[in-house]
């Protein structure tokens, strides 16, 4: 079986696609593109696809990854073109390459996020960011499938840079996973005056192996 690594983006309106929605759309695109998928055996065979680390619904992304298992070897460039054409606008295939051995999840240990916060000045953001980073741990809550959960949002944060109306965050992937919206909740805990007016727009800019010292992210295959 040939495994291909697919890098894709969720742009524009497609950011509202949930992970389940994406899975269905992607499987249909594989069929429309006539990608010779390998199927699992058993009563209800499904195509071999591994989704290691999906972004939350509502978040845009320039760097999502998954791997597909093929029944027959294919040229990655042609698979990229065919899949991209078969997916709806906004779900864009960026790159397809032959997967390297080893679990994809192990090559995805951190992400760089852009968080757009319309109407907030750099000064407001800077003081919230400073207050947050000054703390050793910041407990936040999030509703999960298993009810309300409380966890530390501080330890996963490697760096936060401030720009006008936006933050750039580098987050380590931990268990439980700390998302940029958890960090925003943490900023509010650390700095009660920090209160976004419009819902923030999250965009994952990069994902890969995170160097905790430098904050550099090396994408899979690079």
């Amino acid at each position, binding site marked *: 079986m040939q495994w291909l690594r697919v890098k894709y983006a969720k742009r524009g309106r497609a950011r509202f696609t949930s992970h389940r929605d994406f899975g269905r759309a992607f499987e249909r695109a594989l069929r*429309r593109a006539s990608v010779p998928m390998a*199927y699992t055996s058993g009563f*209800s*065979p499904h195509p071999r696809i591994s989704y290691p680390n999906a972004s939350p619904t509502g978040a845009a992304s320039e760097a999502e990854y998954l791997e597909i298992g093929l*029944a027959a070897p294919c040229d990655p460039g042609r698979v990229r073109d065919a899949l991209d054409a078969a997916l709806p606008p906004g779900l864009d295939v960026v790159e397809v390459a032959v997967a390297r051995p080893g679990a994809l999840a192990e090559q995805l240990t951190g992400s760089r996020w852009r968080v757009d916060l319309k109407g907030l000045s750099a000064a407001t953001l800077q003081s919230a960011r400073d207050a947050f980073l000054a703390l050793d741990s910041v407990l936040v809550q999030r509703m999960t499938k298993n009810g309300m959960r409380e966890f530390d949002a501080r330890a996963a944060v490697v760096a936060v840079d401030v720009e006008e109306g936006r933050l750039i965050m580098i987050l380590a992937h931990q268990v439980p996973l700390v998302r940029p919206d958890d960090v925003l909740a943490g900023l509010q805990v650390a700095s009660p005056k920090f209160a976004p007016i419009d819902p923030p727009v999250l965009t994952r800019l990069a994902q890969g192996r995170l160097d905790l010292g430098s904050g550099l992210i090396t994408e899979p295959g690079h």
Partner: protein
Amino acid sequence: MTTIATGPASVFPRLEPLLARVSKPIQYVGGELNSVTKEWESVEVRWCLSYPDAYEVGLPNQGIAILYEILNEQDWILAERTYAVWGDMEALMRQHGVPQFTLDSHRPVGEFDVFGLSFATELGYTNMLTELDLAGIPIHAADRREHDPIVLAGGHAAFNPEPIADFLDAAVLGDGEQIALTISEVIREWKAEGRPGGRDGLLLRLAAGGGVYVPKFYDVDYLPDGRIHRVAPNRSGVPFRVAKHTLMDLDNWPYPKKPLVPLAETVHERYAVEIFRGCTRGCRFCQAGMITRPVRERSIDVIGAMVQRGIEATGLEEVGLLSLSSSDHSEIGEITRQLADRYEGSNVSLSLPSTRVDAFNVDLANELSRNGRRSGLTFAPEGGTERMRKVINKMVTEDDLIRTITAAYSHGWRQVKLYFMCGLPTETDEDVLAIGKLAKRVIATGREVSGRRDIRCTVSIGGFVPKPHTPFQWAAQCDHETVDDRLIKLRDAIRGDREYGRAIGFRYHDGKPSIIEGLLSRGDRRVAAIIETAWREGARFDGWSEHFSYERWAACAERCLEGSGIDLDWYTTREREYAEVLPWDHLDAGLDREWLWEDWQDALDEVEVDDCRWTPCFDCGVCPQLDTTIQIGPTGRKLLPLVSSSHALSHADKSARTGWG
């Protein structure tokens, strides 16, 4: 997101901040595969189409899918879609002043020429009011302004649009394919001439053709006892009766060719091909079977081509061969065998959703599940006793049923689902309790022929609602207390059975929603006030049991009808006389009123009527009235061989070249 250079601005920038705050935001963003966007100024006529329910229910609707393609294929017409928004979104839209929008280009619904709604069920009426109100379109047709869209209803419920007559500008009966284009042409001409006569000028042109019903051009008078005295045109140039539309030659209209494929999850995730339209089985409860006559088959080769292209255009894996009684297609054996051959070994699965009690159907199902799992088969005997089945003209004997399920269980099927109705005319407790006995015999037979204990039978029961344009249009609807009482007796009889109780599943709903459906189905123009009041008091999504409130509807009916001498029971549980003018008598479904009455009398006498496809004509009136005839095969043609239109991606395995092989 593409920006629209001209025409009304997209509401998306205002909508986007709200999306983070609602459930399932994907249902509001559009951009589905195969959706169409056009420049506003590049066309002459603009339609907004709606199936007034949640996106997940509305998107797969076949009627909207067909019209969307047919209209958008014309370069001078644009068609976009809108659906009912959930309560969380409705509240935010009201708070932020965001109007009802289309999904294709997020344009305000109020800007279109026509707002066309398709009603498969009357329970969508309150959602229509929400959509109109959010769009800024006055809910009463009488209050609409020159620039408001023409609000047009279609679909099966539009065969009696009287309860929503106050909210509609027009309604169309029957198949929409051709009339939607005709209406577009009338609008184009009227606009090009400088809109002579304004809004009424256009409505008069539409009504004059005889194929569009404009309620405001008809007056309804009532007798002192509340019955209708007369329905008559109130101006010259409009017909006394409005006729339904019948599309002949389905092969020339192979739609939908490439239906929308949503990102969101919907109730049906399949490519559906209508293999024929109409049904002459003559089941007396079935409005669809009566109003879609005559039978018109699609040819085997066209079906084959549609399936292949549909799969390619959508990437869907499931294909449904739809119709009112799919195994009745004159070439169904060949269709299923050849399709099963073509897709054997692929992941494409085929299904025949609507099945009669007939052992032949088990053969078809076996064919379609050659290498799949044989999990469940569904049959619809509808009535528990042979007497009951004679009343409803469901010509199935108990032996037929046992033969059918014997075939199913002995071919490896483990579960059989049986559909019945409760509350049918002349029904007694015995008729309903017989359903339990039948189910026990089904299990006993199944255990015997399969030699296994793990077989199951699910009994699913719906409440009967008398519908316009059927022989039961005169019948008294059974009250909900009686229906509930019978269902509880049946439930207890099944559950209390030591030998078979655990092998029989029992699914039913209480009888109250059927009463409101009955009110909306056979109501007249006076029911509009009840619908409006219920809506103002919060009625939304009435087809969803978690949103439906019988108490609210009953209270609104009582208040609105106070002092009128009529009430909810008058509309529902009252039997009508032959001479009574029914609210839909001026709307012509092609059925001869005399024939319907005779069939109603035959029902009471427990006399069955055969299917006219295989026996002489029974003079229901449709064919001469519409100058049509039944169109059935066999044609003897074959499915076209499968040709791959996809390029092969694989450079190693030639067998992958067919794409599906």
